[in-house]
């Protein structure tokens, strides 16, 4: 292992030995406090306007949004969206309690399997931990009830997001994650619009390897 030789070479370059303990205490403090830097003013808004900004930014990045008044309206919104895209009603859904509590049977044409996505799944339904208004970004930490493959393998990803989970800046997302989840999840995805590539002649094409369509069902509820 070259660990010691690399560390020694770095210290030689910095013209010092290992840091003295007062210095490491200070740096440990910085890690523990993880101070914020300058946060752009654009997302510093009343909550309702943050939600508006979030929706505008998702649409700017080629995603789409349906706003519904409550969880009971989600199946209708999903069924209508899939029908409008000419897609079948077969879906793989995150085994998340909030999604499981939705009265899906109200729309009998929707056929739902719970679990992770496989290569053959066409439509996935995911649960969002937060939405970041700053850039219209969905924050999706992995968990047993929020599999990562749902964000990647299906051609169409539908994400259910509570309006109360719309935050201003990414930093608010990190703080909420530290409070509500604690330790860093294995995987945290920030998703801004559907998959795309500009590798062919530097010209944008949607649907490279990930979902071609990203649809957010935004459920109105009061801010926490």
């Amino acid at each position: 292992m070259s660990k010691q030789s690399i560390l020694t070479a770095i210290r030689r370059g910095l013209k010092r030995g290992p840091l003295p303990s007062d210095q490491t205490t200070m740096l440990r403090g910085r890690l523990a406090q993880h101070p914020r830097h300058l946060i752009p003013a654009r997302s510093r808004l009343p909550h309702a306007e943050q939600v508006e900004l979030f929706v505008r930014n998702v649409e700017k990045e080629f995603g789409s949004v349906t706003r519904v008044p409550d969880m009971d309206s989600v199946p209708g919104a999903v069924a209508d969206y899939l029908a409008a895209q000419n897609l079948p009603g077969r879906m793989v859904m995150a085994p998340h309690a909030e999604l499981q509590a939705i009265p899906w049977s109200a729309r009998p044409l929707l056929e739902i399997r719970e679990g992770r996505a496989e290569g053959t799944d066409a439509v996935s339904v995911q649960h969002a931990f937060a939405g970041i208004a700053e850039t219209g970004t969905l924050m999706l930490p992995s968990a047993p009830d929020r599999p990562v493959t749902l964000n990647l393998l299906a051609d169409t990803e539908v994400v259910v997001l509570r309006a109360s989970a719309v935050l201003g800046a990414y930093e608010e997302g990190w703080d909420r994650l530290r409070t509500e989840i604690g330790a860093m999840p294995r995987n945290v995805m920030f998703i801004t619009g559907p998959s795309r590539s500009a590798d062919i002649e530097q010209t944008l094409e949607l649907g490279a390897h990930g979902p071609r369509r990203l649809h957010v069902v935004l459920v109105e509820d009061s801010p926490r």
Partner: protein
Amino acid sequence: MHIATSPAFKENAHVALANAGLQKALARSGPSFIARRASAVAGLPEFEKLRDTARDIKNHTLANLDFYLEAYEAKVLESGGKVHWCADAEEARQAVLAICQAAGARTVTKGKSMIGEEIAINDHLERHGITPIETDLGEYIIQLRHELPSHIIAPAFHLNLEDWEDTFRKTHTDLPSDRQFNERRDVLIEARTKLRSKFLAADVGITGANFLIAETGSSVIVTNEGNGDLTQTLPRVHIVLASIEKCVPTLEDATSLLRVLARSATGQDFSVYTTFSTGARRAGDLDGPEEYHVVLIDNGRSAMMGTEFQEMLRCIRCAACMNHCPVYGAVGGHAYGWVYPGPMGSVLTPGLIGVDKAGHLPNASTFCGKCESVCPVRIPLPKLMRHWREREFERHLSPTAQRANLALWAFFARRPGLYRLATRAAAVGMGLFGRKKGRFAKMPMASGWTNGRDLPAPEGDTFFARYAKAQRVGQI
């Protein structure tokens, strides 16, 4: 190891200038990168302040890099991952191969990684019977064509639609030969279909890292296609390749850097997928890799610490410098002869493969300063290129004629009175000589200039003299 053709930069540049396909690609894509960045920057009033923040975060990290790397490693171990410290490319190749062999890997999918190019990991795996498959669309076609990327974020920058079609027809021979490629979309769909089965079959996934986070032991990748995420999610083993300077302290630090990264690179406010990976699959998880390895590579970085080139270690590989560089815009990336092109390559390459091999690169600059003016972490690239030129001169690596001319110039430059006299004599003389035409079509010792264009004749006096005169009559 890629054989660097950097020593042949001049010949490479001639070839590039005569390459019609490359020139078509450069003319098409260059201006759009510039416009997209400008538009993203215009949309964020705090952008300039965020560049200062980004620079300061990187400087703080580098000044304490030993501490942060050890803190990072501790967190990776805590989250069930492993860190393999590698001093050079050879150690890194061995580490990756050992992990792949232990996993019994036959195929390996790869996300885009510049350090992967630097250590030429694909060749090494292939030599040992393991098939690496590049999955970033641009990297995929580069691999099929056995080329190097010509741009650090747009590897296939130099190709046109007809090149894609040609390569796909030659490679995907199992598909009907009469299929049509009418538009870019057809190329994209074929690549997507081809690669989907590779993603699902791979035993190991290798990605790079845009950042490593000491606070949490996370590696961060930034992509638009989603290929990096499929690469690190589906196979049983995930290997992260990262050089030591990718480390930053906290999630907040990484977040601040991400705000300037995508805007500087593609002109997006945020990339489509920005993903933080921390360790292996957790209890109850339905997906994710069972093993998580970080191959942490020095390969010349620590030798830059404490030198005038330490500032280069702030680089976050956005490519804004090459997108705005008139030299890159004229000759493209391959002329630079190794992994990193453009201004950042002109500073980094001599540091990594030696100024004796890459001395032409820091000389291939007009010093217009555009690279520094767009760098999100404010690396003074022209100044660093000048430092390489000094080292090259000190080590007597520059050509004799060039050294003799410089010595002659230095003789006069140290004697200002003589300098003015001599330049004035030359200006007046040339002005008289070229009065009729106003230009010279040929000039001894300046054929490099006059072969391509005329040299304008001086209008009769030197700048110094005209400036002094203008001051006397109160014009300035």
